[in-house]
C-alpha cells in the first residue's frame, strides 16, 4: 500500500457498499435482503483493509459476514416458514424517506463545511496488528474495556438463551 488510498479501489468498494445497502432496503424478499447485507459487510471489510485496519477487517468478516449472517438466516428460516411470508410488500414510507434524506443532506453538508477534515493528508505511519495487540492487552491501554466487552458478550449470551428457552407461553 502506498502512502495514499487509491481512489479506484475506494470507488469500487463504495459502489458495492451503497449498492448493496439500497438492494437490501428495496428487496421484497427478506432472504435476498439478508444476502445483500452480507455483501455490504464484505465490502465494508474491504474498506477497512483499504484503511490499513487489518484486524478490524478480519473481525468484521468473522463477526458480521459469518456469525451475524448465519443468525439472520436461521431466524428468517424459523419465523418465516413459508415462502409467502418472506416475500412482502415494499413498506415504502415517505416520512421515513424524507427524514433520512434530510439527515443525509445535513451530515454531508457538515462533512463538507467542517474545515478540519479537508485535504487531510494520509499519515504514512500505519501500525501493524502486533502493535494493535500490545496496546489492546496492556494495562495502561485497553485491557479493562476489553474485559468489560467480554462481560457484555457473556451477559448477552445468557440473556438470549433466557429469552428463547422453552417455557410457559
Amino acid at each position, binding site marked *: 500500500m502506498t502512502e*495514499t*488510498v*487509491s*481512489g479506484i479501489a*475506494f470507488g469500487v468498494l*463504495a459502489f458495492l457498499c*451503497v449498492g448493496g*445497502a439500497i438492494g*437490501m*432496503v428495496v428487496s421484497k424478499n*427478506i432472504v435476498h*435482503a*439478508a444476502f445483500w*447485507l452480507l455483501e*455490504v459487510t464484505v465490502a*465494508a471489510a474491504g*474498506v*477497512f483493509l483499504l*484503511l490499513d*485496519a487489518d*484486524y478490524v477487517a478480519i*473481525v*468484521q468478516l468473522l*463477526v*458480521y459476514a459469518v*456469525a*451475524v449472517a448465519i*443468525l*439472520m438466516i436461521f*431466524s428468517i428460516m*424459523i*419465523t418465516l416458514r413459508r415462502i409467502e411470508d418472506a416475500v*412482502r410488500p415494499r*413498506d415504502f*414510507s415517505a416520512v*421515513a424517506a424524507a*427524514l*433520512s434524506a434530510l*439527515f*443525509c443532506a445535513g451530515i454531508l453538508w457538515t462533512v*463538507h463545511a467542517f474545515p478540519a*477534515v479537508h485535504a*487531510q*493528508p*494520509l*499519515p504514512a*505511519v*500505519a501500525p501493524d496488528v502486533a502493535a494493535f495487540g500490545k*496496546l489492546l492487552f496492556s494495562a495502561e491501554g485497553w485491557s479493562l474495556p476489553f474485559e468489560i*466487552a467480554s462481560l*457484555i*458478550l457473556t451477559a*448477552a*449470551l445468557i*440473556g*438470549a*438463551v433466557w*429469552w*428463547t428457552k422453552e417455557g410457559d*407461553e
Partner: protein
Amino acid sequence: MHVGVEPFLMLAAVLFSIGLYGALSKKATVMLLMSLELMSIAVNINLVALSRFVTPKTMEGLFFAVFTMVVSAAEIGLGLGLVLAIYRQARTSEVTNLSELKG
C-alpha cells in the same frame, strides 16, 4: 487519483441514512435489525477512517470500532432472540403487531 478522509465520511453518511430509512420504514422485525446492523457498519467506517487519518499511532478509532462491533454483536444476538420469543408468543414477528404495551 487519491482520496482523503472526506469520501469515507460521505460513504458512511450515505450508508447510515439508508439504514435509518430501513429502520424507520420496515415492518418485519428481522429487516429492522438488519437496518440497525447497516447503521453500525457505517459508524465503524467512520471510526476506522478517522483513526487512520487523525490518530494513526494510538489507533483510538480502531479500538472504538472493535468495541462497537462487540456491542452490535450482542445487540443482534439479543434482538434475534427477542424476535424468536415474540414469534413463539404471537406466531408472527411483525412490528405492527407489537402494540400490547401501548397505552
